């Protein structure tokens, strides 16, 4: 197990290094000079050059790469060109919205998907299965911004249970914050839950066909018992893979939903940064997202090993 951990950590560090290099190089070749963008069309070349010096843009590329990496290692992501504030503060502020939103959506998705997937697999080919499969088909095909607007109409405008948009911050209490995130989380969770339920159902059905399920039945387990005690754990591997991918997506992919609900999340930050050529913010946010994805992959790998004893010994 220790070797498995060590190898995973090593691959995590290497992936991060490779990703940082790629991000840096891509940003290098992207057209648009932040200095001239900040100063506007009428700025003289001398002023622009002075600002480039001040921003450190005139140094050689390797030196800038190293100072960027070194800065990040110390938690210093540099200054935003447009907002003139540290990027770390900017990102931290946005993560306060995006991270809880992603976790909230993921939790809701799992809460719906597990019972639905189990039910559909247990009642395969019967009414409950057909109903779940139909609902998931709908969940996958409905655009989530449309569903979000529907939620706003019903729960915010008609019944006034949840706010229609905006985020009050966490200072006003956890309740108000969660309330603001509830509708967006539901909108985000719907397609994810549908996908997850389908993956769980097909993984369970595949596992149900295995020889050891027949062995378990020959021992006297009921169908439900074999599903819970033997099939579920074996079916968790593909489910975990999907869960990991969904979390990574939810963290930054919520941009449309953030716009519908006026949430100051990571997705909107990166969108604004790109339109304003705030390359340092783009670089840093992408790097943080890459880190998050790699970290989640690492955690999913760990979970695999906890579930499947065969992985613990190998590699």
């Amino acid at each position, binding site marked *: 197990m220790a*070797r498995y951990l060590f190898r995973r950590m090593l691959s995590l560090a290497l992936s991060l290094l490779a990703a940082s290099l790629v991000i840096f190089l891509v940003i290098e070749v992207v057209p648009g000079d932040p200095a001239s963008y900040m100063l506007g069309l009428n700025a003289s070349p001398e002023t622009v050059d002075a600002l480039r010096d001040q921003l450190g843009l005139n140094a050689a590329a390797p030196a800038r790469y190293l100072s960027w990496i070194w800065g990040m290692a110390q938690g210093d992501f540099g200054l935003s060109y447009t907002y003139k504030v540290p990027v770390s503060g900017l990102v931290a502020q946005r993560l306060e919205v995006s991270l809880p939103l992603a976790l909230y959506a993921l939790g809701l998705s799992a809460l719906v998907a597990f019972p639905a997937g189990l039910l559909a697999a247990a009642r395969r080919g019967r009414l409950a299965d057909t109903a779940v499969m139909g609902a998931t088909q709908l969940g996958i095909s409905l655009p989530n911004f449309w569903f979000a607007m529907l939620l706003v109409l019903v729960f915010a405008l008609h019944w006034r249970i949840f706010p229609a948009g905006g985020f009050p911050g966490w200072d006003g209490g956890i309740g108000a914050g969660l309330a603001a995130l509830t509708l967006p989380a539901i909108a985000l969770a719907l397609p994810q839950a549908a996908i997850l339920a389908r993956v769980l159902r097909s993984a369970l059905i595949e596992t149900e066909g295995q*020889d050891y399920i027949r*062995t*378990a039945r020959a*021992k006297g387990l009921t169908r439900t*018992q074999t599903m819970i*005690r033997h099939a579920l754990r074996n079916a968790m591997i593909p489910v975990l893979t999907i869960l990991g991918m969904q979390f990574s997506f939810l963290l930054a992919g919520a941009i449309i939903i953030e716009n519908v609900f006026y949430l100051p999340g990571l997705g909107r930050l990166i969108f604004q940064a790109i339109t304003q050529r705030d390359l340092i913010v783009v670089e840093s946010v992408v790097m943080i997202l890459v880190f998050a994805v790699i970290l989640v992959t690492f955690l999913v790998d760990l979970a695999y090993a906890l579930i499947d*004893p065969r992985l613990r*010994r190998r590699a």
Partner: protein
Amino acid sequence: MTLLSVRDLSLSVGPAPILSEVSFDMAEGEVFGLVGESGSGKSMTALALMGLLPGNARVTGAARFGAIDLLAQGEGAMTRLRGRDIGMIFQEPMTALNPMKTIGDQVAETLLIHRAASRGAAREAAREKLDRVGLPGDRFPLSLYPHELSGGQRQRVAIAMAIALRPKLLIADEPTTALDVTTQAQILDLLGGLVRHEGLALMLITHDLAVVAGMAERLAVMQRGRIVEAGGTEALFRAPSQDYTRRLLAASGHRPARAARTAGQHSAPLLHVEDAVREYILPRPSALAPHPRLRAVDGVSFSIGAGESLGLVGESGCGKSTLTRAILGLDPLQGGSIRLGGSTVAVGRIMPAALRARMQAVFQDPYGSFNPRHSVGRLVSEPFHLTGRPPDADDRIAAALEEVGLAAADRHRYIHEFSGGQRQRIAIARALIIRPDLIVLDEAVSALDVRVRAQVLDLLARLQESHGMAYLFISHDLSVVRALTDRVLVMQSGRIVEAGPTERVFASPDHPYTRRLIAATPTIPAAWKEAAHAD
């Protein structure tokens, strides 16, 4: 005292009838053999008794087990019965255990599910049962996972699970078919001991007549969902009343008629293997230690003459498949050399296509060795990529199919339309079509039923007679090697421990390992067979 009395058991799945009017009795504490070829309905009979049939199956008839009728019980009653009164083990020990749970938990589960013991007591019972099936606690703690055990050991765990609550009846469905001969002998010995000492009755389902001959007091022979003949084992073997039984018996010891060849009559060897070494690099035991190496093939030397038939026998893990891959030029050697007709066999493009075309292979699995999306004609003509497609390719495809007993028109069909035996014929046609000098047959008949196996063996003997190619016949099954080869090599732990003319090696083996292999091979007593032949 009758334990189980099956009357007119009929079964259909959808519109297809699977079983018709199957009737038999089993006494307490007896070993009852249920024999038949694949698809004869023997496994379905067992699953019907266990109430584990697929959902769309319809069953009629009765199966009295003590005071109750198994076929009339609801699912709830059957779950209480399964594992407590009737235990069952299956063919595939490698997949029969849950890979995610320890063997201790899996054995204890039998007791827990029937609320026969507390958690602690169930673990103690699991320990005791694992000891009983030959997995002592010092080497096999309860915390082991199935992947840490061999196939034979896993089958022992499955048996421990099945007997944990001392059922009155144990159904064993092909319990040793996937195992090596020596492991098979040990498992059969264990099952026999359980019957004698624990007083359980054993229903032994197998396609192997020799296995029942040594185990069962009585047996029933099944064909196409019916019991065609039943009776005391010895009497039935000595004087089978049904033609089908007679053909099964004849096929089980079948030896194709073939002219004996001797190695001496050929001057230059066709295939020459010299000091072949094949090593695998294993993971490091610790971060800085060197990689340990596993010598799967350890200095093997032998040669095959043109037109000769050489057997290679050994148990799984002895290195015979690894050696085969090296001979076919699929894996590199770490030492020694392999030469075919004087040219070196190597991995990759260094080995010229013309040299590769001189040998072809037929593998074990008739279901996995074809691309299901290609027509049979395309599959059979595949080796032409080594020689270039000849102008008369179509005629040669037709000829190759006809030679193996299929029709030329079969080339337009797809592989799923054929039975296992037919598929193996197609594999032989594919190997034959470019007229190689050597065909490597890796367990080529091991997955086939006895009668089909006998036919394929005849076909192989006839083809060798007419085309004069050499065979390297690799198998764990001594009887088929004996039937088809002139010389035999016995392999153990990567080395050839004995080599010689087949008849001599089987009649008077020198090496203790060869003797052990031969002793472990189940046989039908010669006296029984003579009587049958005289019939």
